[in-house]
């Protein structure tokens, strides 16, 4: 825990350097101020741009619209999943569980339709899902998949927030992620009461997961037939 905390502090320091401080004083008074920042990043980190398996197909796009399309893709996946669950509930489902899963279905579809509307003509096409690995008649199969999707959704929004440049988009992403976290906790409690935020979800520093779009899409790929090109998404 001690060392993890040290690492967090390091991250905080690092962020301060690369943003607030460098934009302030003397060396940025030179003409190449903005360029210097870019050069810094370029000099400091060598990024590998190739993303095997996520570099061809439906292009999510770049900048903030790219991140919104990324969220839209994930909401499409979740919406399709819960739609299937509610249309064909697992064997012996109690009424209260069906009611909760129906609520979640409605939330995910609301997120999906919201992103579609917000993106307008910039929205990606409807993705084709692959749920062949899920046994919709079996409670464990359904809830285990739901847990995967919800935890992944939380980590996805947590990791993508800092990639957004527009405050109003960050705010709306924040409005959605806590609802996904409420879902995640509920699904986990349905599987095992008390596992809503155990060490498989929340680390010793009390932090939920955060993953990059590439990490998330790599995990989500197993459930999506449509090829996705994520190579134009912002990475910082």
């Amino acid at each position: 825990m001690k060392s993890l905390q040290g690492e967090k502090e390091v991250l905080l320091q690092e962020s301060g350097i690369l943003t607030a401080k460098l934009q302030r004083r003397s060396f940025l008074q030179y003409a190449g101020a903005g360029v210097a920042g870019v050069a810094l990043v370029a000099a400091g980190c060598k990024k590998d741009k190739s993303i095997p398996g996520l570099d061809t197909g439906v292009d999510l796009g770049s900048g903030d619209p790219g991140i919104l399309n990324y969220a839209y893709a994930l909401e499409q996946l979740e919406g399709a999943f819960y739609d299937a669950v509610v249309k064909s509930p697992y064997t012996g489902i109690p009424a209260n569980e069906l009611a909760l899963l129906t609520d979640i279905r409605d939330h995910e579809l609301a997120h999906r339709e919201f992103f579609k509307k917000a993106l307008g003509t910039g929205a990606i096409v409807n993705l084709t899902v692959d749920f062949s690995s899920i046994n919709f008649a079996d409670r464990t199969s359904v809830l285990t998949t739901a847990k995967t999707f919800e935890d992944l959704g939380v980590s996805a929004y947590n990791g993508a927030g800092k990639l957004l440049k527009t405050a109003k988009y960050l705010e709306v992403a924040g409005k959605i992620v806590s609802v996904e976290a409420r879902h995640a906790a509920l699904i986990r409690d349905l599987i095992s009461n008390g596992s809503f935020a155990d060490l498989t979800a929340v680390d010793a520093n009390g932090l939920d997961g955060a993953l990059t779009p590439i990490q998330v899409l790599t995990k989500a790929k197993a459930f999506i037939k449509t090829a996705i090109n994520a190579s134009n998404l912002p990475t910082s």
Partner: protein
Amino acid sequence: MNIINILEEIEKVDGEVYERLNPRRAAMKSFYGFGSKVALAALPMALGSMFKKAYGQTTNGVIDVLNFALTLEYIEYNFYQTGINTAGLIPAGTPAVGAINTIRDHELAHVNLLKGAITASGGTPVSFTAASFDFTAKGNFPTVFSDYPTFLAVAQVFEDTGVRAYKGQAGNLMSSPSVLQTALQIHSVEARHASHIRQMRKAPAGGGLTSLKPWITGANDSGVAAAAASYAGEDNVTQLDINIPGLGFSVNASTEAFDEPLGKDQVLAIASLFIK
């Protein structure tokens, strides 16, 4: 990160970078040697403290947000710790004990994380003890530590308010991406807590509120009239100028699907009820 490259790039636009740094040139030479041996993770830290000396870094806006968050985490941590220390409050031998301990542990971890972050950023963390707080909220909840359903009701309000408070600060952290991400990672944990506490209140021992959901329906669904300020505006159904019911969803689903933020002043007004 290649620290040597970074320093060389800076030197191109600021020839005096090494003079600004303390330790100066002589020490920098040993730093070059040091850089090749030390663990990669330690480099940004070393670089951070160097820049702080060279350019007089202050990030007051971010530190203010972190201290605000720390205040809320102190309230939550001391609330759960007091509850755990109160014999007979949390039903012994039930899953509730484990759940409250888990949540308490997270709040303490958040306290420690935020204290560390504030100190590392050159700020001074605010400080509170259990004696700093009045969990009856000036007499609004006189049985908070003697009546288990009341304890859970206050817990729910704390968690839902915490989610809204972090959400309201995200925009103020955009200049510090890593701080923003850490705040988001705390934010969703508070939402997990809120979800579970709401489930605990549904159980007979917790109050038997069977209509309560893990998500917030409409405005104040807590069943606690005194908590109205903590839920103000949760019944909003418009996102980015898009009317969500207009997309074909019920008003309830439209409010549940999006949690709303609270501003700092709103949160401090709520928090002040609990601070002596």
